[in-house]
């Protein structure tokens, strides 16, 4: 009798622990979404500034300005892509639908299109995005 009464109590305790752990995981995932979205937003702002040539480093640093300008344009787009993929991936997982190919393609296009003004930026961003996606699929088993 006493054994019977103990078992449900243990199950209940385990259930509470699991719920707490799930809550903790969800809360952690939510915090990750917030952080990565903020970072994605920051890099989107940087991308708007640099890829629209609102600021050009070539004006400040004459010799390496144009090269550095090019690198910053590409890096901001790539970082935007990385953080948005992390954010959307976690968001989708939290609502119960894992990130699919369509979502990834949308972020890919929205990232790539930011470099449309400059064919060099567009080309290297394309290569960078492909490398990141390859990494996500092959290494991380996305």
């Amino acid at each position, binding site marked *: 009798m006493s054994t019977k009464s103990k078992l449900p109590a243990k199950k209940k305790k385990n259930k509470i622990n699991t719920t707490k752990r799930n*809550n903790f995981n*969800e*809360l952690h995932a*939510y915090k990750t*979404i*917030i952080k990565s*979205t903020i970072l*994605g*937003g920051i890099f*989107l702002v940087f991308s*708007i500034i640099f890829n*629209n040539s609102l600021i050009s480093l*070539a004006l400040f640093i*004459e*010799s390496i300005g*144009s*090269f550095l*300008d*090019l*690198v910053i344009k*590409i*890096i901001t787009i*790539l*970082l935007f892509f*990385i953080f948005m993929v992390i*954010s*959307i991936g976690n*968001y989708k997982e*939290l*609502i119960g639908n894992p990130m699919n190919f369509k979502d990834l393609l949308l972020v890919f296009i*929205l990232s790539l*299109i*930011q470099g*449309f*003004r*400059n064919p*060099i930026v567009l080309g*290297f961003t394309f*290569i*960078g995005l492909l*490398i*990141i996606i390859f*990494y996500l699929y092959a*290494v*991380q088993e996305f």
Partner: protein
Amino acid sequence: MVLYHVILILIFNFVLISTFANGFTEPIQPPFGTMPTIDGEIDENGKEWDDALKMRIFLYQNLSAPENGLPIDLWIKQNDAKLFFAIQFELEQHSSSEFDYEFIGILISESESNKTEDFTDFRVIQFTNISTGQYNYRDYHINNFLYVLDVNQSGEGAAKLKGDIITYEFSINLDNYEDYPEDVFLDYLNSYAFKIIFGKINQYPAGFLLSNIIVIKIQYPPLNPPIVLTELLFIIFDILIFGLICVLFLVYVYKISKLKLKIKRFKV
């Protein structure tokens, strides 16, 4: 670990860019400035070249395998009618008679292409005796790889040696087709490749020793900018594309804020 991999990817991309981007960097946009005196002297007190774009480039023997380049300081600027170059470098051997026939030439391409056959215009400041400071400025056009002196000489050039430091100054006419049909027509808002050449024998092209190529986009006079349709389209696309991305981003942020309200467990 993930961050480590992301950093590795970014470094890889950076290396990739630095490997290939040097070959096709954006054209140089010369600033507008006052007209300098073409006398082979950079008047530092008069701040003659202060409004120019200054850079250091290297002249190489073989552009496809650049090594041991000669560093030169290069100033570039323009006004509404002319493009100005100043080139300065130091050579310890300048006092030697080996450099009596030193020259700096500028080959001008018909476009931003750097193919040999596209360089059809050549301006050169040729020393005839560097120790006495005698030189000539010449304007050639290139016909089937032959350097032919232009009937109408265009532009100006001057050079001066001070100690081991030598300065060359060039002035090249813009928008010049009617007056100088043998020259490359340098039109506003177009980009052209300029090959800067150093040599010490007065033979062209046999005397070409070191060189490098820069691409310059000729700027339109600032007072009368034309309405460029492509630029207008770029601005419209900018607004549309970045506007769309911003709207989607804000919708996503709104969804995230709603998510917190939906999942009430978070409040526990």
